[in-house]
């Protein structure tokens, strides 16, 4: 399915679960926060989310900052 991840087009090969998307992107689940279509997905809600074609996904992490 075609989704947008952090502003770029991404072809997702899996079943639409966030766990599979993170694996695809080499992102460690405990080090990222996820927003789907403008809504923050709590860690406890991740398993119940199924991505759909056209979804906008933002994946965020911490970097150094003052």
């Amino acid at each position: 399915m075609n989704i947008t991840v952090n502003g770029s087009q991404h072809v997702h090969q899996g079943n639409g679960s966030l766990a599979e998307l993170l694996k695809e992107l080499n992102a460690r689940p405990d080090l990222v926060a996820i927003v789907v279509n403008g809504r923050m997905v709590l860690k406890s809600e991740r398993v119940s989310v199924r991505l759909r074609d056209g979804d906008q996904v933002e994946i965020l992490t911490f970097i150094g900052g003052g």
Partner: protein
Amino acid sequence: MKTESKLTLGGVEFESRLLMGTGKFASSETMTRAIEAAGAQLVTVALRRFNPGQPSDDLLGPLRNLKITLAPNTSGARNADEAVRAAMLCRELSGSRFVKVEIHPNPHHLMPDPIETYAASKTLVKEGFIVLPYMPADPVLAKRLEDVGCAAVMPLGSAIGTGHGLATAEMLRLIIEGSSVPVIVDAGLRAPSEAAAAMEMGCGAVLVNSAIAAARDPVAMAAAFAAAVKAGYAARGAGLMSRSAEAVATSPLTSFLT
């Protein structure tokens, strides 16, 4: 004036009065060693989009091995709504109730937007955050931020990353005089002597990033800042002598050679 030995922010106590930022370090190893040398217990981080091209670019991992509390900032937010959204994501990611509200829409001077900072801080206090607002050195705004429940106020010494020290000293004095919450000088410090001066003025803590990260030897500079903050705080507690317009002799002036 407060002279408790511990820094209390939102009911959480810290031994160290040196807060540290994690930006600009050449490597995460230098950063972690500098945090240890500083003895910093409250450390800021920033939120950014994950970059699939650099999956190993992991900041949280090394920080989790240290005994520190994270205070993620909302840098990148241009208004209160964005800052609140960023803060929610930060809390989800860090598990920390601390947030440094940082809203500076103009990249040339990075001055904090007082109106958006106030609005975001007010909302985030209600949402249960321990709010540390980065703010212009304005005593009126400081009072307003304290009134809405901020755990501290964080006026700038000078613009972020400039190293111009305590350019706002006179305003900082007014903020310290009028505040019941800790005043934390954030931004602009370059030398440990400036951190000591801020503590002597009565600041509760200082937040340092560039001065440590951009030093030739960041780990040694972190230790120097830690010593300066301790010295300045101890001096404040000891009570500085009053100034005199005229010389006051420390030795007897009576003549004994004639």
